[in-house]
């Protein structure tokens, strides 16, 4: 198989200016341009991308993915090493950059197209499909400064994707526009791949990287950690990123008057051991430890669950649960026992609170104070957040075939996929 892109020992150094002398005076007075520290954004990165494959670049923020992409796109020059690209190339780094706000959409299509390397007759030919793809026929003769941001980006994407290059570089721009436009983009990508073109994608969306890419390179602090088939590399990458949950993840918030405090919250499994993982159908206990600075009359304890995406799943407080002590003082704890966890596979955050009997005054509220994962268990249902324990049955059909002849569909095979 031929190679579309060869990255050979590429290193890129940036200068971190301590004090940027952008004035002549400052430069003359110091006798040199500026003092700076060197920072290697990329160090000796080498790999090859075969023609017709889709290649992903993954890594944490600041790992050098975008720098590498810019080196491939020839926007930056590597300090060492070489990048060679076979065939024409287009980069989708920022959409609609180079649009002139005062010019109309039509003029900007020509302008942007020619900046990206298209000849005028070529743009003439593709003009209709560009406008059609962006879905802004009505506004094509309006100045682009009057466009909504979505229209702006859509037009930019549409111009870029219609260049029809041999190699397409994409940096996190898959997430533009509304759902319908995104679908159109994905179709266009698929079309691209079918046509045997090479695509290089930078993204943090691991799910789409897995399904889109054939091969993936993993960068960490500018160094290449692993290149290989996307599933393997993405798995190792995700594994490394997933450490055992800490009790108080970032983004937790806390407020309240403080006379009573929630000192810790934990989830216990059936054996009474603290855990951050549970299976559907397991017995779990949520235990809240508290401490008070003065006696509290008739406190109400509350627990609520949200998914990491922020969907409110469940909530329950002890007043509704008919357990309201007359008074608490000092240290103590209270349990909420769930006999069989009716949640599907996902990651959940626990919110915990102590409030007064009227539930209007908050002593302590801890948001997202405990995060846990739910893994597949019994019962196993196809998708969504909750397990209803539903059973299929009583099939009545007009068909003469007896019901026993229907094939059993393995659960989960045709239903919407579970959320990861």
């Amino acid at each position, binding site marked *: 198989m031929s190679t579309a892109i060869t990255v050979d020992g590429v290193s890129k150094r940036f200068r971190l200016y301590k004090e940027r002398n952008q*004035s002549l005076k400052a430069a003359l007075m110091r006798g040199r341009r500026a003092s700076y520290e060197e920072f290697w954004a990329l160090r000796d990165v080498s790999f090859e991308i075969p023609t017709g494959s889709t290649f992903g670049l993954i890594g944490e923020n600041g790992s050098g993915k975008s720098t590498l992409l810019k080196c491939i796109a020839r*926007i930056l020059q590597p300090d060492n090493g070489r990048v060679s690209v076979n065939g024409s190339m287009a*980069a989708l780094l920022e959409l609609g*950059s180079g649009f*002139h706000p*005062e010019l109309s959409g039509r003029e900007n299509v*020509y302008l942007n197209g*020619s900046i990206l390397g298209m000849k005028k007759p070529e743009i003439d030919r593709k003009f209709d499909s560009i406008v059609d793809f962006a879905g802004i026929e009505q506004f094509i003769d309006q100045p682009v400064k009057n466009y909504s941001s979505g229209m702006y980006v859509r037009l930019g994407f549409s111009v870029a994707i219609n260049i029809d290059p041999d190699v397409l570089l994409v940096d996190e721009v898959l997430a533009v526009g509304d759902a319908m436009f995104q679908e159109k983009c994905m179709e266009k990508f698929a079309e691209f791949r079918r046509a045997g073109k090479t695509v290089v994608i930078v993204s943090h969306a691991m799910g789409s990287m897995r399904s889109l890419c054939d091969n993936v390179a993993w960068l960490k602090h500018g160094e290449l950690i692993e290149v290989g088939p996307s599933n393997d590399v993405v798995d190792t990458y995700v594994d490394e990123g997933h450490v055992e949950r800490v009790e108080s993840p970032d983004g937790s918030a806390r407020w309240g008057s403080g006379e009573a405090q929630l000192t810790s919250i934990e989830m216990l499994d059936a054996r009474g051991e603290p855990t951050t993982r549970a299976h559907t159908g397991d017995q779990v206990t949520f235990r809240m430890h508290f401490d008070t600075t003065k006696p509290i009359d008739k406190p109400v304890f509350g627990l609520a669950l949200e998914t990491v995406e922020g969907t409110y799943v469940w909530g329950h407080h002890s007043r509704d649960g008919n357990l309201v002590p007359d008074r608490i003082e000092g240290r103590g704890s209270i349990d909420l026992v769930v006999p069989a966890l009716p949640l599907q596979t996902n990651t959940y955050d626990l919110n915990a609170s102590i409030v007064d009997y009227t539930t209007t005054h908050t002593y302590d509220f801890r948001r997202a104070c405990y995060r846990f994962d739910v893994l597949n268990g019994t019962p196993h249902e196809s998708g969504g957040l909750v397990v209803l324990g539903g059973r299929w049955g009583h099939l009545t059909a007009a068909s003469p075939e007896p019901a026993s002849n229907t094939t059993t569909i393995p659960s989960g095979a045709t239903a919407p996929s579970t959320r990861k």
Partner: protein
Amino acid sequence: MINLTQREIKGKYKRTVLGQAWSLVNPIAIMAMYAVVFAFVLKARPEAGDPSGLDVFALWLASALLPWMFFNNVVVTGMGSIVGNANLIQKVYFPRETLVLSNSMSWLFTFAIEMAVLVLATLLFGGEPLLTLPVTIVLMALLAAFATGIAFLLAVANVYFRDTQHFVGIAMQLWFYATPIVYPVSLVADAHPTIATIYRINPMERFSEAFRNTMYDGRLPSLGTMAYVVVVSLGVLCLGYVVFRRREGRLAEEL
């Protein structure tokens, strides 16, 4: 490149009532001002055109002022074209020199219209700029090359030192008065031989003289002047281009 030039031309006067007419109104207004100040207030009296016999201060002024304004525009806006298009440079790959070149082209377009108007006006007053018109056109091309070369150099310098643009504003003023545009060259040339020699190193002085010869006097510039102008223009353009190409690759990160 052509599209970028069009963008410059179209974008420049977008949303103005007069549109492209501004590109003519502007020089006419400046010319009128200088004409009043220098011809009536300061009583500057250039010699009549030889051999054309023209004696119209405005035409005399315009034949050197229009080239100067073109030069000034190309240098000043060309210098800012890299910094001004930072977003484009950091996001899209294309040969960066097109930014400077298309800027020059758009001004050359305006300059050509202005010169055409000047040719008509000169004809109206009885001058004979038509015979020497081919030389004028060659001179325009050379001036464009000279200005673009300087614009290349300053565009790069401006990326590294942003105060280049402020410095250049003053330098251009100085240069303007060091060039015989609003006063006749004889004023300096007759003063002192050494000063005159140094004075004549200035390529814009040669350009002014050459343009005045072809447009106002209706004769060919001296061979020495033409040779000097050709060498300096092409030399500066080459130097500017080489420096620009050498720095081009690093522009995206230095911006």
